[in-house]
């Protein structure tokens, strides 16, 4: 689904990521870990074509990102649900409208009152907050709303960048459970985190591959995590 073939990324004259090779396969559950500033977010952005490799190649669903048009990239992003740590929303639209926005963007549906939408909002536990505006939500509620928005198009891959960074342990467990449930439905999940306790918790629920960025390179982490 996502293939990195000797990919590197440089910025401002310095190389941030170097010689990265990785194949993210369908149905896999991946943790991407490493110290702050190691380049986890940069690698994730490369995985959904928000950034482009300065060396090597990255293929999304078999297509080389460097040869894709802007419209092709937009189309590909509909197959990749992204959850950011800071969860950006359109602040003047309700939570429900924000979650439904990918449907409008793709032209697949325009009604925010769609039954599936309500089901999804209930699944992430936000039914009572559906009409609220994003700035009125707590950190955990924002993360769950972002997750709902990321999966409403039933994407093949869910990429979450530090999804538990701003929430307490209980909410982290809840979010992890939601992501594990999605993985059991056949979705590929990639989570960037530096929270080792989250990884340990996940290992009891799902077979996860743990990747670590160290010295600008990607390594398969050992079992000592």
């Amino acid at each position, binding site marked *: 689904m996502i293939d990195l073939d000797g990919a590197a990324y440089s910025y401002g004259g310095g190389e941030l990521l170097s010689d990265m090779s990785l194949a993210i396969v369908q149905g896999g559950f991946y943790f991407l870990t490493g110290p702050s500033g190691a380049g986890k977010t940069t690698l994730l952005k490369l995985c959904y074509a928000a950034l482009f490799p300065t060396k090597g190649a990255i293929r999304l669903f078999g297509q080389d990102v460097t040869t894709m048009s802007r419209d092709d990239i*937009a189309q590909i992003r509909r197959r990749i649900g992204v959850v950011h740590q800071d969860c*950006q929303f*359109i*602040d*003047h*639209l309700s939570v429900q409208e924000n979650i439904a926005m990918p449907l*409008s963007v793709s032209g697949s549906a*325009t009604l925010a009152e769609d039954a599936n939408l309500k089901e999804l909002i209930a699944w992430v536990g936000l039914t009572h907050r559906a009409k609220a505006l994003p700035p009125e939500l707590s950190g955990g509620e924002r993360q769950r709303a972002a997750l709902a928005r990321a999966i409403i198009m039933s994407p093949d891959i869910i990429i979450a960048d530090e999804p538990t960074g701003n929430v307490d342990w209980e909410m982290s467990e809840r979010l992890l459970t939601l992501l594990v449930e999605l993985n059991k439905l056949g979705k590929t999940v990639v989570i960037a985190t530096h929270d080792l306790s989250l990884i340990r918790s996940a290992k009891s629920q799902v077979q996860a591959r743990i990747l670590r960025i160290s010295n600008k390179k990607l390594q398969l982490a050992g079992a000592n995590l």
Partner: protein
Amino acid sequence: MMSLLREILELIRPDFQRDRVVPSTGVTARLTGFTAGAMGFLVVFALALSLAADRLGQRWSAALAQTATVRISAPADQVEMQVAAVLDILATTPGIQTARSLTAEEQQNLLQPWFGTDLPLEDLPIPRLIDITEDEAGFDAAGLRLRLAAEAPGAVLDDHARWRKPLVQAAGRLSWLAMVCIGVIGLTTAAMVILAARAALAANAQVIAVLRLIGAKDHYIAAAFVRRFTLRAFVGANVGVALAALALFALPGAADHVAVLSGLRFQGLEWAALIAVPPVLALVALLATRYAAMRVLEGLS
């Protein structure tokens, strides 16, 4: 051309969800509406000036074409004799339809705007005027001048050519200048809308980032802004045009005979031209916003 038309139709197609993406308030909304209103107001006056100049040129041309004047300045005891001689010559000149000596009252009326009503015409050495109307073929001015010189030495033929050409040229240039003004107003509108659209795009950077993240194509994002700016421009232009129309309507009409400005008000079907101004300004806003949006979006990942 067809693809551009299709794209424009898609840009202005209502889409409730898409239209709500961009916040409806903000200084750019007021700026765009005000700019379109002001430009609409100016376009109407430039258009009125252009049409008035065109009408003026046609009026001058029609008034002076196929007419000529013979002016007779002679000692008092020879005036009537020379007038009669000139009329005889004109009566036998091919190409002249009518020739008529102006009465004293008519000459007084001609001089009245400059000298007032109490002019003692009989005490002044005012030349006598003979008004000539040509037929379709026209007359030989050079030959007529020679005959007049021989028969009536005080007669001078004025075929109006030296007046007509520069007047018609001046009116034509005025009309052209007004059209240039309309073009400049259109470009200024585009520039102002581009600035406002860029400001709106910058102010809504987060909205754009979210839309890109969830797979919105540039066309979708641009359309959200384009439709908003186009509607604002259309509403603003309508207000400006309506105010200009009221102002024009308050001006004296052509029938009021108030010098050159008398014809500035639209006449007849010319009022219908006003209907075209708001859509044209809205189209300018549409193209300007689309240009600004696509340029900004192409710079984003």
